[in-house]
């Protein structure tokens, strides 16, 4: 399962398109803001009735309504259950400060979304290949 945290519908559509076109068949859960992402992961708020989701990788935008991406990351890393979930920051900006903080808070990767869709497509292909196929997940992250 992939958790895509993205508030921009265009970007959501394009990301899904790029992933689908690359034949990535995994379930893709979408959270449209930081709160929703945290509710999904911790089974709180609107998602309190469900089990917490355990994604293989989280694609996390930084600039989000309500709770921003870095804060989401901070809370993930502070929680024992989500401490080791792979998080790829996928964002428009390449501000040094963002990169520094992202890595500092324990992001596994930082990818900038290119304007050129062909490049974006290529980035999505490589991300899927890497995190869903090549990368061996942390044992504790396996669904218990």
């Amino acid at each position: 399962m992939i958790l895509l945290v993205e508030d921009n519908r265009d970007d959501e559509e394009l990301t899904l398109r790029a992933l689908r076109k690359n034949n990535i068949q995994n379930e893709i859960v979408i959270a449209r803001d930081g709160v929703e992402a945290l509710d999904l992961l911790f089974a709180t708020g609107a998602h309190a009735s469900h089990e917490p989701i355990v994604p293989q990788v989280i694609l996390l935008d930084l600039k989000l309504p309500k709770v921003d991406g870095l804060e989401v990351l901070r809370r993930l890393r502070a929680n024992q259950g989500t401490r080791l979930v792979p998080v790829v920051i996928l964002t428009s900006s390449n501000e040094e400060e963002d990169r520094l903080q992202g890595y500092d808070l324990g992001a596994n990767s930082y990818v900038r979304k290119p304007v050129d869709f062909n490049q974006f497509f290529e980035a999505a292909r490589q991300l899927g290949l890497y995190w869903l196929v090549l990368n061996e997940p942390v044992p504790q992250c396996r669904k218990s």
Partner: protein
Amino acid sequence: VNASTSGFDISPNARRLGPSSIFCAAGALLAVAGLMVWRIFPTPHEYMPHGFCYLWDRKLIWLHATSDLLIFLSYLSIPITLVYFARLRRDLPFNWMFLCFGTFIISCGFTHAMEVWTLWHASYWLSGILKAITAFTSVITAVLLMRLVPLALALPNPKTLRNEVNQRKRAESKFRDLLEAVPDAIAVVDREGRIVLINAQTEKLFGYEREELVGQEIEILVPGRYRSRHPGHRAAFFEEPRLRPMGRGLELYGLHKDGREFPVEISLSPLQTDEGFFVCSSIRDVSERKRVQLALKFSEERFSSAFEHAAIGKALVTSGGRCFKVNRALCDLVGYSSEELLAKTFNDITFPEDIDADRSLVDRLLAGEIPSFHIEKRFVHRDKHLVYGLLSVSLVRDELSQEFYFVSQIQDITERKFVEEKINDLNNELSRRNSELSAINKELESFSYSVSHDLRAPLRAIHGFSQALVEDAQDKLGPQEKEHLSRVRAAAVRMGQLIDDLLALARTSRRELTREDVDLSRLADEVVSQLRTSDPDRNLRVDIAKGLAANGDKHLFRVLLENLLGNAWKFTSKRLDGQIEFGSQQHSEGERVYYIRDNGAGFDMKYAGKLFGAFQRLHDANEFPGTGVGLASVQRIVHRHGGRIWAESVVGQGTTFYFTLDPAQDNLQPSESSLDSAVNRPPMAIDAAQTVLTATEKQGGGQK
């Protein structure tokens, strides 16, 4: 026989004749007397010799005869001894008395001799005459002796004399000691001007031995130019002898044996003695005193001059606050003449509000708790404007009068106050602007952040959905539509590039400088190898000088080299024999100028002014891609390091960029040598545009 040759008047002769001659004289006297008696009184024989009276008892006769003879001999010897003594001790008083005694004793002696004679011969007349003579001399002697007794009694006895002598010796010794102990040189001079007595100080002062001076005229000690007049002065003193200083009101000088003159002070006093009238001069060397006086005078003049001509206002103020000495600078400070100022108290010129400002300090000063104090005070100028002064006050006690006074110094700090206020205003303004700038910077930062995140997303949508359209509706679109959609996509990419470059430019300004020593050669190597990786088809020759270094921000230096080397890389792309060179020149002024040279397209120097402007391009984007931000970033980086940047170029031959990174030299213009070398070399092209940052980013993106 001349009786006058003998008799009483023996004393003058006795001085020259021995005792035997006195004997002879006495004998002669007796002989004469005997003869006279013999003649005048012929001895009748009717008297019996004296022996009859003794009944010619031989023993009795001989007893008398022997005794009388012995008495005679003894009496004869006594006067001889007396005369001998008198002759040797002519100093004794009443010398003539010894003569009387001598005569009387001799006469006695002869009467005893006559006694022996009359034992056998009845010369009683002669004997009687002899006795008469003896009687006469005895009576005279007795009378004289009686008259002498009171005089003799008045004579001091030997012990008294000895005491007196000792006393005199002591007195004389005291006098000598006193003379030597006197700190002044003493010279006693007689009426003729001859030195009779000096002390050791005189020897020392004038450099003579005592023997060299005693007996000489006192003028030996007087310098030549005064010598002729001196005897006149000397005579005048003897006319009116009294204790007085010599040459009152004149400078007196002594003459040393070695010819050197020295200032002296001389006191003269008359000295009346048994031996006559003398003048005692007491001479004091006043060289040291003169020197001290001179030094004091200089010191006073110096102080006076320092006081009067000091650049800051000075005043000596009595404890009552009245100025009794002011200097020029103080007069200028408050606009009064010194006469006007001396008529005022210190408070008169002080701004009323400030009069009490230093009261507690003055109290502490007077109590001796502090040696001085400094305070800022305002003073009122004659034309009523305020003068700001830095007042320094110290207390001085006059040793002579035991009074104290203040030494006040006032430095005019009006100008400083004015400047201080101005600086204060400027500082306030500066900090106001600073906080404004900070606010603007903060806004700019969030603006940047927002641009970075939000502006690119729509572009991505434009590009992505155009692409989706082409892919999904391929059959429905004609070549014309496909071409249009491809233009939309290109514009979106280009806009994304512009946004990135703009953000990079903003970052070069925003970023805080972290200075360190940076190895530029190594940095350039890294940049070039990045360029080679991203563009592996190009085979350029790149020469990077070894050991290029500078102090500055490493990250910004990298951006600078990425842009400049990236430009050179880009503008040599049309040549097969492309060359890039990075080096530096040490200029005579000590300035280090770095240069990056290529043999690429070059540009027309006519447009050099536009070179570093943001979004300014000198080449067609189709020919050489770029946004026109790179060189603007480069210039900003160079300026932030305090350096300069300029370029030389010839179209079709190449471009050289020169830059310095040393703030100390930033006022210098490019020197001749750099211009020459630029002109002689194949000049180069410039694009004010394309940044390597973009290239590396693309490359980075490709790797992901």
